[in-house]
């Protein structure tokens, strides 16, 4: 299955959340790979703690591969053996493969979608689908040629299942923007329909993920004054109403990731060790990633709206 991760704005935590989802999915015993299609700023290497590709690869990365610059196969990084983090360097028993396909260092966004680029993209998805249970594709923020390319590629692979995750923060602007990215003019649905997807079927394959969510009853808020808490509560209620008006509400939401200080300071994978041994991460955050990693393949969570 192909999963496309997108967000309208930058800084939503799209990359850090999608990497944590594939990491959890691998721990659950599946073979997974992560494609860094954020060609403008390929940073997935840093999140997986693979120093050699922290800002993209200097070898044949995805960008070179798609543009046909002498690479029949893009560079692959086996995270279980190449990560600099000791806790990640041994594959836990029962875990599946965890492979990163980095972008190019200094690659830049796609200038257009040429037929040859599209053909290569289809070939790549088709080959990876043969090999991996889950292929997570991190598409850059907003409307881009990259998003158009993968929309077209999935039209040409009718028997390969795919789904979209739209990441947004729990604020007024982000909710409106996330809805706009999907339903707005030239959004995912418009573009998808233009390339040959059926609008309703495509809509059913899109779900929202809320990131950095601060619940009004969260433990972090204990020190707040009553007035502050009341204000937050009112805000949250208002946002819920706004979200459901924009159809970004509960039914189309796949999951939410609580605000975790560790992710505000450093984008990284949250391992069980971070929760249980060093206790730098919250158990709720790890549980939310774990839950999402199950839900993305759970058909019940993707039934028609």
């Amino acid at each position: 299955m192909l999963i496309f991760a997108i967000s309208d704005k930058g800084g939503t935590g799209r990359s850090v959340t999608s990497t944590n989802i594939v990491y959890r999915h691998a721990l659950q015993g599946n073979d997974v790979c992560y494609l860094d299609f954020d060609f403008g700023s390929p940073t997935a290497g840093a999140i997986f703690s693979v120093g050699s590709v922290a800002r993209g690869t200097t070898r044949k990365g995805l960008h070179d591969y798609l543009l046909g610059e002498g690479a029949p196969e893009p560079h692959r990084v086996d995270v279980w053996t190449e990560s600099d983090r000791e806790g990640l360097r041994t594959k836990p028993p029962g875990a599946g493969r965890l492979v990163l396909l980095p972008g190019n260092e200094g690659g830049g966004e796609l200038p257009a979608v040429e037929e040859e680029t599209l053909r290569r993209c289809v070939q790549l998805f088709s080959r990876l689908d043969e090999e991996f249970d889950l292929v997570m594709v991190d598409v850059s923020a907003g409307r881009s040629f990259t998003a158009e390319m993968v929309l077209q590629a999935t039209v040409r692979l009718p028997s390969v299942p795919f789904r979209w995750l739209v990441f947004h923060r729990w604020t007024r602007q982000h909710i409106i923007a996330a809805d706009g990215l999907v339903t707005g003019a030239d959004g995912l649905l418009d573009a998808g329909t233009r390339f040959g997807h059926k609008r309703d079927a495509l809509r059913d394959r899109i779900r929202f993920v809320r990131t950095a969510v601060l619940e009004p009853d969260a433990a972090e808020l204990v020190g707040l004054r009553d007035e502050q808490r009341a204000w937050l509560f009112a805000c949250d209620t208002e946002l819920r109403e706004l979200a459901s008006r924009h159809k970004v509400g509960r039914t189309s939401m796949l999951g939410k990731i609580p605000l975790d200080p560790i992710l505000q300071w450093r984008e990284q994978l949250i391992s069980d060790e971070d929760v249980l041994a060093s206790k730098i991460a919250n158990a709720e955050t790890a549980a939310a990633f774990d839950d999402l990693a199950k839900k993305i393949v759970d058909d019940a969570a993707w039934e028609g709206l």
Partner: protein
Amino acid sequence: MLVMGEVHTGLLQNSGEIPESTCRDVLQLLSGERVRVSRRPIVYAVSPDLLTGVDCRLPSASQSRIRGAGTVLSRSSITGGRVVQGSSYTRIERSGSDRRQPWSHYLARPGVVEVLGKVKSRDLADGFAEDPPADGLDLGAISARFLDVVQSSPLLDRRAPFKIARTRLRWVAEQGEPAIRFTLHSEQMRTVRLVHTGEFTPAVADLCEDLALHDWLLTALLVIIERARIGGTPGPEAAVKLAPAVDHLLHLWMPSARVDDVLSAYWESLDRRPGFTRQWQSLVDRVRDQLAVHTLAFLREKSGGGAR
């Protein structure tokens, strides 16, 4: 001078095995040419040979810039309606002249790449094990495409019973005292260096395809057994994970089925050491024993439940 080839092997992207007639349709890559099928001891269907024109750098251990021009022979095949292969090879020969000839010259010698300039056979062969440079002869890329053509056929439902990586076997054959060396590199990469007496015949390519097929079967079975985590997960769960091996792989082991008698000694030597069939047999026994143990446990549970 020498022959180079690369075989890619993978699981056919279909829920079940496909019948002989579908194999024929899937492999009909070149209209007008017939797909060849043999039925015993296992159904094997192979596409007509197709040519790819190349004019590029050739491999070289000493990093010399050697240019070659000519054609590569490729084909796709399906074994047992379940395993698909893309295979390419070309004979490297010295050119009669130092000048690049028109394509008509090379097309008259299908499957031959002529080297322009000086070259040492050993240098070429040693360089071939390495990944080719961007402007180098990449038989793997050609073979992968021949595999893609089959996998993307609209006649297949793309619902394969399990996910599995393709393996690639790069081979080089030279003339001399008979010898064979099989090396496992990474999880997916293997090389074979083979020395044969007398002239090269396509039977050598058949042998390498047969080796690649069986190496893939062995690799796939090992992966399935690893995923089942025998002993680490409850018996029924392990048994469910082993089931695809029984359904789709165990009956496909037919070493040397299509290998010419003259070359069967190579298979026999590899079967002695490292011992392909020995390893396969022990894995098959392991799968069957696990299923037997699980069945016994299941029966005991049922009869125990009935007595209470």
